[in-house]
């Protein structure tokens, strides 16, 4: 073993107390850092799984007229600005090399009326169920009832909304069409009413949408199923799912069925051509202008009644897409960087009067909460580092001063400053390697055990921290490398000052000490 290492190694044992203090701090620092980054990575992955993959996708296309980005936040109340020309840029999305899946949707907040006529609001998202399932497969469970058939119209009521509606507004409990009451799913209050024999059960709910013409449309979609998102139900379970045509009817927008009727045969055949080029689309722009002109044309309501039921049979996606949406969920291909995709897509979609935002922007404060939790963890870890650096620095500086005569003598005999630095640094490096390494290892084991135990929670805040219903802290290879780098940085920073102190010790200091 080289001389410096021998001396450093033996000094560690000679100054056991100090070595242990530094070692314990390095151990704790490395341990907390590892566990912290495991939680952060788990949180990120959980959020990705439970929000991005179940609810929002990576990016959303919204109308460029839309002012507030947080289109998925219930507080916003008003429906987002409509996108009437989706069919024009659909092929852009379809062929885009960054995009894996997309599903167009319309979000809005219709009123729900109690039997007494008291209004409250429910959040609904109108989609094509089939497309939606393709994009977000198996992300919610159907508690009661069933999944809609392809092209079927109706409502998927979330368990969260059923419960809160019952508790705060409706005096009846909603169950799917033709289903039996499942008493196990009753909320506390509903169960009390049930045992008393006073629980009223209904298979339908009335939604009343508003539009800018202030004429309200009552709709009563069949309740197909009661659904529950796998995690973060309180946050994302506020959105009922409804078929897009029902949504359009509810808010008085042009339905695809109406567009269909207003188109002549030639135009319709053009529309159903899946291989439409951009040129074709642009040359027909005026046609879509009339087809998608939202709530302005009310004469078509009479037509709607006739077309509504046949729609199930004759509709295909293209027809559906001819109507109004107000957001398009986009899932990127894996590995595509989010912000780069935002820029590229914004460029590509600029001509269509829409813009692209991230899922975080769309979620507003829910995503912010998760970011805050993440940032706090990060700050906590940084704080641990800071404290560790200060303590190690102080301990080592004192150690240097206690070893003045030894260091000064080494210098007198002919050891250069560099020798002293290396000796000092080697001591900390040994400690850091051993205790810090041990900390990372124990952290890794802790994370593995925690993940294996798989703590689960119903608490909403904890779910945000967990990134879902289950706590799955997780460390990637990159995290471990990052921990090692951080540990090295701590080691270097905390040794710099003590090293400087030691380097400045001269033989004279040693003699003066005698």
């Amino acid at each position, binding site marked *: 073993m080289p001389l410096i290492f021998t001396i450093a190694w033996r000094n560690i044992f*000679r100054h056991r107390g100090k070595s242990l203090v530094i070692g314990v701090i390095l151990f704790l620092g490395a341990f907390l850092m590892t566990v912290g980054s495991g939680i952060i990575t788990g949180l990120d992955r959980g959020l990705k799984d439970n929000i991005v993959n179940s609810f929002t996708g990576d990016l959303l296309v919204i109308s460029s007229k839309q002012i507030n980005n947080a289109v998925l936040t219930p507080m916003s109340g008003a429906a987002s600005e409509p996108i009437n020309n989706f069919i024009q840029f659909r092929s852009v999305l379809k062929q885009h090399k960054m995009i894996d899946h997309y599903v167009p949707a319309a979000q809005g907040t219709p009123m729900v009326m109690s039997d007494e006529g008291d209004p409250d609001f429910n959040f609904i998202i109108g989609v094509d169920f089939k497309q939606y399932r393709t994009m977000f497969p198996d992300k919610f469970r159907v508690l009661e009832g069933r999944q809609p058939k392809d092209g079927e119209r109706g409502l998927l009521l979330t368990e969260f909304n059923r419960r809160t509606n019952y508790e705060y507004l409706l005096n009846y409990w909603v169950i799917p069409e033709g289903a039996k009451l499942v008493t196990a799913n009753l909320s506390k209050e509903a169960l009390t009413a049930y045992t008393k024999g006073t629980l009223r059960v209904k298979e339908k709910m009335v939604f009343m949408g508003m539009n800018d013409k202030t004429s309200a449309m009552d709709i009563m979609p069949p309740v197909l199923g009661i659904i529950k998102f796998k995690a973060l139900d309180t946050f994302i379970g506020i959105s009922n799912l409804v078929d897009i045509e029902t949504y359009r009817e509810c808010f008085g927008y042009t339905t695809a069925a109406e567009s269909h009727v207003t188109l002549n045969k030639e135009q319709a055949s053009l529309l159903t051509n899946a291989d439409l080029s951009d040129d074709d689309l642009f040359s027909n722009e005026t046609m879509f202008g009339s087809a998608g002109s939202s709530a302005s044309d009310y004469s078509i309501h009479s037509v709607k009644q006739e077309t509504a039921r046949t729609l199930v049979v004759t509709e295909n996606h293209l027809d559906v897409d001819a109507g109004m949406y107000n957001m398009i969920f986009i899932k990127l291909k894996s590995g595509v960087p989010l912000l780069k995709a935002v820029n590229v897509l914004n460029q590509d979609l600029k001509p269509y009067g829409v813009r692209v935002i991230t899922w975080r922007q769309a979620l507003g404060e829910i995503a912010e909460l998760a970011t805050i939790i993440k940032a706090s963890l990060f700050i906590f870890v940084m704080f641990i580092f800071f404290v560790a650096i200060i303590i190690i620095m102080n301990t080592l500086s004192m150690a240097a001063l206690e070893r003045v005569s*030894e260091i000064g*003598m*080494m210098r*007198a*005999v002919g050891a250069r*400053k560099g020798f002293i630095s290396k000796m000092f640094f080697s001591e900390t490096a040994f400690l850091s390697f051993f205790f810090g390494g041990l900390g990372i290892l124990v952290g890794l084991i802790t994370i593995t055990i925690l993940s294996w135990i798989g703590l689960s929670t119903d608490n909403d805040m904890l779910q945000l921290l967990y990134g879902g219903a289950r706590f799955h802290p997780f460390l990637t290879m990159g995290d471990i490398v990052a921990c090692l780098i951080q540990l090295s940085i701590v080691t270097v920073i905390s040794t710099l000052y003590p090293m400087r102190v030691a380097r400045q010790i001269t033989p004279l200091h040693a*003699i003066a000490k005698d």
Partner: protein
Amino acid sequence: MAISTTPLIHLSSVTKEYPLGNTTVHALRGVDLTVSKGDFMSIVGPSGSGKTTLLNIIGCIDQATSGSVVIDGQEITTMNDKQITDLRLYKIGFIFQTFNLIPVLNVIENVEFPLLLMKTFSKTEVRSRAERLIEAVGLSEHSQHRPAELSGGQRQRVAIARALVTQPAIILADEPTANLDSETGNQILELMRDLNQKEHTTFIFSTHDHNVLAYAKKIVKIKDGLITE
């Protein structure tokens, strides 16, 4: 064997001042001194006369306030830290008034220390040189002991072995016998004289013990920071 007449050490008008509060302590007041290769020189003087200060300046561990110090033809007052450190390593052996050894190294490792810093010798050569000197100072049986396990005199002898192991041109010893009983002190002085005679190593040692002076070939007297004789 003829002794070279070129001076190994040459000091001219060397002064050393220590600021002390509002006043200044004049430890050396203009010292001129020439030491030739192979000298066995003793510096004597009362306590506080400037012996240690003078040796520290010659040994390159302290800097003169003014004047010129030339060692082996090199002016040291203008050297940087690295050059001075290397000069100490290659040309000078220092035996301190109190014995400073590296606590975590045993006797043989302490003696090997400067040789290992030089990085010029093979492992086996380092070992054999160190062993030879440990034997010379009579510590063969203690070569594996740590400094804390040795007596004061034994530690002093380790320090001497360490100073000699690199075969430096100059060995400086600041009251090498002050902490030793007279018998051990004499043994060490014998050892130094032996080396001087066999290897022509230049010795400069300070003392105010008149017994020690019997060994000296040259005596320089110092008083109040001035060489008087």
